[in-house]
């Protein structure tokens, strides 16, 4: 594949529906939870073809592990299921990541451009674990869900991919863009008692 048939437009559904907000508790100076939308991220889903395990091993090696984010150069590979990875990159033109992956992987794996399909949030702050515990059934304690962990799960009945990307101290949440406003409202409602800041 040399060119995409269409160039996805990566815009934010949150910008159209929500406004930046901060709610602090009396006497509080730092919000308990900070929810920020991450803009300009490129995503592509790579799924290994069933009969291509040995060719895949030669190309990629075996360093990609279950429920783990592995940094390969400037790309982060998030485990997304058996034989399936979500590749994330920053600072690329829309659609270029899929083209970059197609070149070596074409025939061995299918590559699906997803940049326009997901909204990505960064969650941080001293009370982030308490707020997430209300929405997520996974054990996100830093000793269990260590930096470099990722998982597909649900929050408020919405499918969410959650990750602790190596080199960052926040939680990254990926949600289908049509659910982005609902997820933000759920996160804000879970965070209100701790004080929060929301930026999109």
């Amino acid at each position, binding site marked *: 594949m040399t060119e995409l048939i269409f160039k996805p437009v990566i815009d934010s559904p949150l910008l159209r529906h929500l406004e930046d907000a901060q709610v602090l508790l009396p006497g509080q100076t730092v919000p308990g939870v900070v929810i920020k939308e991450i803009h300009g991220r490129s995503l592509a889903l790579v799924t290994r073809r069933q009969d291509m395990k040995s060719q895949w091993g030669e190309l990629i090696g075996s360093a990609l592990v*279950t*429920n783990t984010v592995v940094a390969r150069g400037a790309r982060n590979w998030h485990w*997304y*299921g*058996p034989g*399936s990875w979500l590749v994330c990159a920053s600072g690329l033109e829309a659609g270029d990541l899929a083209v970059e992956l197609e070149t070596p992987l074409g025939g061995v794996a299918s590559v699906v451009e997803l940049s326009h399909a997901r909204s990505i949030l960064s969650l941080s702050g001293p009370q982030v674990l308490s707020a997430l515990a209300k929405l997520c*059934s*996974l054990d996100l304690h830093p000793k269990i869900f260590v930096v470099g962990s990722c*998982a*597909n*799960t*649900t929050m408020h009945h919405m*499918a969410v991919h959650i990750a602790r990307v190596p080199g960052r101290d926040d939680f990254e949440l990926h949600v289908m863009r049509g659910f982005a406003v609902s997820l933000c409202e759920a996160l804000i409602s879970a965070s209100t008692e701790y004080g929060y800041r929301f930026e999109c």
Partner: protein
Amino acid sequence: MLEIECPWCGACDQSEFSYGGEAHIARPKTPADLSDQEWGDYLFNRENPKGWHREQWCHTAGCRRWFNAVRDTVTCRIKAYYRMGAVPPEEDGR
């Protein structure tokens, strides 16, 4: 709520899974040759045991893979997990 051990992802809450009913029900090769009774058996009639039950689960919200589990329908304890197409644990001679 059950805690189910996905063979790929590890222990997760039941809310991440979909139930697929009794395992090892093969679709008849020639449905047209079946009597209404036999076709009805295939479609609707299940063992529904009180005790160990081989059943299908899908980690819908996680890795999206189907797998089999052996669950006690009285206590809900799950004693074994095995892949789709694999021989059930009690029958593989172990």
